[in-house]
C-alpha cells in the first residue's frame, strides 16, 4: 500500500482526488492505559459514503469526535482532506468538516432558521453575527436550504417545537450551510424508526451525491448500511476488525463478526480481502 499521508503533506500535491480521510495507527484513551482506540487504520476516498458499525463501546463515537477535531488523540496520524490534523484543527480546515452529533446539537431555544444560520458562523465570525445580525445573502441561502428540505413553513418555529424528523432535517441543513467537503454523522438517525431513518438517509444520500461530498456515518442497522452506503467498516474493542464494500457484508457474516471473537472476524476479513 502506498503512503499518501507523506506525499500529501505538500500543499501543491493537494487535489480533489486526495482521500477524504486517512487514519494511520490511531490510538486514544480517555484515561491513562485504558485504550478506546487501539491502532485504527482507515482510508476513505473523496466522495465516499462510508458506514462505521460496531457494538456499543467499540470506539465509534470517539473516532468520530477525533475526526471532527473535537478530541485530541494520543498517538497516530490523521489526515483530513489532505491536511494533517494535530490538536485543534485550523479554522480553514474546520469549516470543511460538518459534524452532526448523536443528539444533533441543535439549540432548542432558537428557531429552525436561526439554527441553520449558525452553520455560516465559520464564514462570518465577527461581532456583527455575535449580535445576531447575519448577511442577507446567508439568510436567503438558509431559507433556500429549509425549502429544499421541506421545512420552509417551519422556519420560524423554535426547535423544541419540531418533531424528531424535522429536527434531523434542520441539523442536515445546518451542516450543508457550512459548505463542508466531509460530513461526519454520529448515529444521528438512531432515534428514528427504520422507515423514517431510511427517508432521512435517502435525503442525505441524494444531497451529498449532488454536491460530491464525502460522508462517514455511524450506523446500527445493517439494512440501512446495505441500502445507502458504499463501504462499511466494523470497529470492535477499538480495532478495525472488518472492512468491505457494503453489499459484501451479509447478515450471517455481520452476526458472526458482532458475536464472535474479533480474531475470528479478522480472519474472515483477510479471507474476504483475498
Amino acid at each position, binding site marked *: 500500500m502506498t503512503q499518501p499521508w507523506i506525499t500529501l503533506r505538500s500543499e501543491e500535491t493537494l487535489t480533489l482526488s486526495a482521500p477524504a480521510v486517512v487514519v494511520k495507527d490511531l490510538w486514544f484513551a480517555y484515561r491513562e492505559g485504558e485504550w478506546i482506540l487501539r491502532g485504527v487504520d482507515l482510508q476513505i476516498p473523496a466522495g465516499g459514503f462510508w458506514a462505521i458499525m460496531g457494538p456499543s463501546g467499540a470506539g465509534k463515537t470517539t473516532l468520530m469526535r477525533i475526526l*471532527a477535531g473535537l478530541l485530541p488523540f494520543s498517538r497516530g496520524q490523521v489526515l483530513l482532506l489532505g491536511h494533517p490534523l494535530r490538536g485543534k484543527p485550523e479554522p480553514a480546515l474546520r469549516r470543511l468538516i460538518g459534524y452532526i*452529533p448523536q*443528539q444533533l446539537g441543535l*439549540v*432548542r431555544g432558537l428557531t429552525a432558521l436561526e439554527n441553520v444560520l449558525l452553520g455560516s458562523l465559520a464564514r462570518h*465570525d465577527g461581532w456583527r453575527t455575535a449580535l445576531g445580525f447575519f448577511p442577507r445573502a446567508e439568510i436567503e441561502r438558509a431559507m433556500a436550504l429549509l425549502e429544499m428540505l421541506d421545512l420552509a413553513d417551519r422556519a420560524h418555529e423554535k426547535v423544541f417545537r419540531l418533531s424528531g424528523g424535522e429536527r434531523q432535517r434542520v441539523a442536515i441543513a445546518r451542516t450543508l450551510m457550512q459548505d463542508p467537503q466531509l460530513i461526519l454523522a454520529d448515529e444521528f438517525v438512531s432515534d428514528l424508526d427504520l422507515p423514517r431513518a431510511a427517508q432521512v438517509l435517502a435525503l442525505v444520500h441524494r444531497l451529498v451525491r449532488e454536491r460530491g461530498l464525502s460522508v462517514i456515518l455511524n450506523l446500527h442497522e445493517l439494512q440501512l448500511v446495505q441500502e445507502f452506503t458504499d463501504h462499511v467498516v466494523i470497529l470492535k474493542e477499538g480495532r478495525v476488525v472488518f472492512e468491505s464494500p457494503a453489499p459484501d457484508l451479509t447478515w450471517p457474516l455481520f452476526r458472526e463478526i458482532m458475536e464472535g471473537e474479533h480474531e475470528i472476524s479478522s480472519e474472515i476479513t483477510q479471507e474476504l480481502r483475498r
Partner: protein
Amino acid sequence: MSAKRLAVRGTWQSLEWRRWRELWFSLGLVALLAWLLNGMGFFEAGRLIQGTSNLARFVQEMFPPDVRILPTIAGALLETLQMAFAGTLLGFLLSFPLGVLGSRTLFPAGVVVIVRFLIAAIRTVPSLLWAVLMVIVVGLGPLAGTLALALYTVGYLAKLYAELFEAIDPEILEAMRGVGARRRHLIRFVLWPESANAILSQLLFMLEYNVRASTVLGLVGAGGIGFYMQAYLGMMAYSRLTTVLLAVLLLVISMDVLSAWLRRRYLLHP
C-alpha cells in the same frame, strides 16, 4: 438457602438499615432544634406569656390604621418600587457576564475560581449592610438603596447563572464548536437561548425578593418606604405604622401577581 433468596434477604436488610438510619437522622435533627431553642429561652413559660401580652397591647394600638398618611407615603412607596426595579436590572446586567466568566463551560479553571470567589464574597454581605456601605459611599437617598440591591442581586444571580451555564448540554457546545463558533457566538447562540427561561425565572424571583428587601433599606437612610417605618416606630405612632405595613403588603402581593402573570405569559419552553 438459594442465592436468589440470599440476595432478596440482603436487599431487605439494606433497605431496613436505610429506614432506621433516616429515622435516627430525623430524631437527631429534632433534638438539635430543641437544644438550640432551649439555649434561647424558648421553654421558659413566664417569658413567653409576658411577651404575648406585650404583643397584644402593641396590636391593640396598631388598629385602626391611620389612612390620612396615605398621600405622604405614596411617594416613598413608588421610590421603593423604583429602587427594586433599578437595583434588580443593574444587578442582572452585572450578573450575566460574571455568570459566564464563572462557569467552566467557556472559561479556564483559573478565571472561574477567581470569579466564583468574588461572587461568594459579594453574597456574604447582607443587603442591609450593603445599604449602610452605599450610604457611606454615595450619601443618603434611593441611589444608595439601588446600588445595595444591585450588589446583593449580583451575589445570588451570578452564582445561579454560572451553575445554569455549566448545566448546558455539552453536545450542543460541541456541535457549535464544530461549525467554527467562537466564544462570543457560544454566549449569544447557546448560553443565552438555552438558559433564557431559567434566567428570566430567576430574575423575576430576585425582583420579588428585592421589592420586599427594599422596604427595609430606608431604616438606614437608603431611601424608600423604610424611612417612614422607622419614623413611625420611633414615634410610637403604631396606627400609622399599620398603614405603611398594609401598603407594603399590597405592593408585595401586586408584585407576586405580576410575576406569576409574566411567568405564565413567557415561560412556555419545556
